[in-house]
């Protein structure tokens, strides 16, 4: 558990270094979190994935797996890896201000 400053505000993070409080998240914070992950610019495709993840999380209480993203978000796996390199489900969840998906334990 650690707190650090994002855009001049102290925000709390969980043990996986994901944002702890859902209310702390907004689109500007997302841009900063993305930079920390090496994603320097958030395009419309990034936002499509981020918004899908947030919607899923609000409905199901868990961020979706890569398989679910591919099946339901309309973004192919290959593109997911291009948008959020290495671990798309985990990275996109982090940028979306959600906890690490339980599927990728």
């Amino acid at each position: 558990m650690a707190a650090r400053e994002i855009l001049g505000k102290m925000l709390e993070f969980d043990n996986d270094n994901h944002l702890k409080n859902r209310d702390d998240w907004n689109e500007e914070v997302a841009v900063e979190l993305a930079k920390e992950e090496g994603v320097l610019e958030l395009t419309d495709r990034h936002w499509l994935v981020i918004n899908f993840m947030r919607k899923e999380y609000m409905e199901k209480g868990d961020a979706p797996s890569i398989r679910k993203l591919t099946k339901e978000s309309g973004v192919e796996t290959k593109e997911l890896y291009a948008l959020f390199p290495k671990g798309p489900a985990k990275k996109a969840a982090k940028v979306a201000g959600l906890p690490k998906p339980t599927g990728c334990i």
Partner: protein
Amino acid sequence: MKKLLILGGGTAGTIIANKLHEVLDQSKWHITIVDRSETHYYQPGFLFIPFGIYTSKDVMKPKRDFYPRGVEVVIAEIDKVEPDNNRVLLKNNQILSYDYLIVATGTHIHPEETEGLIDENWHKNKFDFYTLEGACALANFFKSWEGGKLVLNIVEMPIKCPVAPLEFLFLADSFFTQMGMRDKVDIHFVTPLPGAFTKPIASGILGDILEKKNIKLTTEFGIARVDNEKKVIVSWDEQEIPYDVLVTIPTNKGDSAIERSGMGNEFNYIATDKETLKSKNYPNIFVIGDTTDLTSSKAGSVAHFEAEILYDNFLNAVEGRPMRAKFDGHANCFIESGYGKGLLIDFNFDVEPLPGKYPLPGIGPFSLLQETKMNHYGKVMFRWMYWNLLLRGQELPVTSNMSMAGKRY
């Protein structure tokens, strides 16, 4: 007469059938088990087959030897469950109705999900060891292999028995050393995870053991396809890793009947209450073992601990009493590390594997997260326990909920 229908007669289904048959009044309850096959496989034994430690006869017994007497056994493929009509359709056109349903249809590998994995070289230079056929084919291959690049790849999580890939690597190191050809074999572990294992402390300790054994580790590798011409596996971001022999842990998915029933998630696992083990969507359906969508490991030990909880909750539920037993995600896994040694890990939903002694605090005889000969004997002895105690639903000298006693943290 009330009808209890159990789908799947594997480890989970057999244990719960034995436990419930023991106590349900036979003049009031009719229990039916449905499974597609007559053979029970001791799946933890598959791991030993490629290295000639076990053969197929060590891991097979007739399922009927382990079902309780007096239950009806139906050998058939399941077409689908109709949870709104309280009935199950079988592929042989039989229809089974139920008052209560326990789903234990398990998880299976799906190599066809990865492009290029299944072709004429499947089980020739690309193998799985999660099926008896795959494990035996690999045993044959190793008998005449002269060395080269051995790549073990996990396609995607979650998988059944997440420690099995590590055990395979450790045993391979030991096997090729004893064959006098370890210097000719380059062992490489390629995983989509950020480390050697799913939980941080164990991941660090196991990662160190990999390094000590000279096993190369590549993390965060999401396999997109196999290029059979070039003999490389290719990631979604176009990294290539060459192999001479590829051992794959393919995509795992729940039974296709779950998909046909519209009851599963994207991996065909059923939404299950993590404490009571009741289906989240249907009041008269329970789910056990690899079939659940829980984050606990998909492993026999988990099915065994779940059976204790489900048993308690089932008996209360059918009498209209509140369900009190709560599953904590407890898992307990021996990890063979080669050279007659092994490790043991014990963990649950909230507590990751920690060092210490098990099951008696300070005494053991088993050591947690440490390589010892005693842990190896535990694993060897476990096969006897599995056939003679565990499947029959008998008490084992360990608690179903995890204990912090004996753990160092």
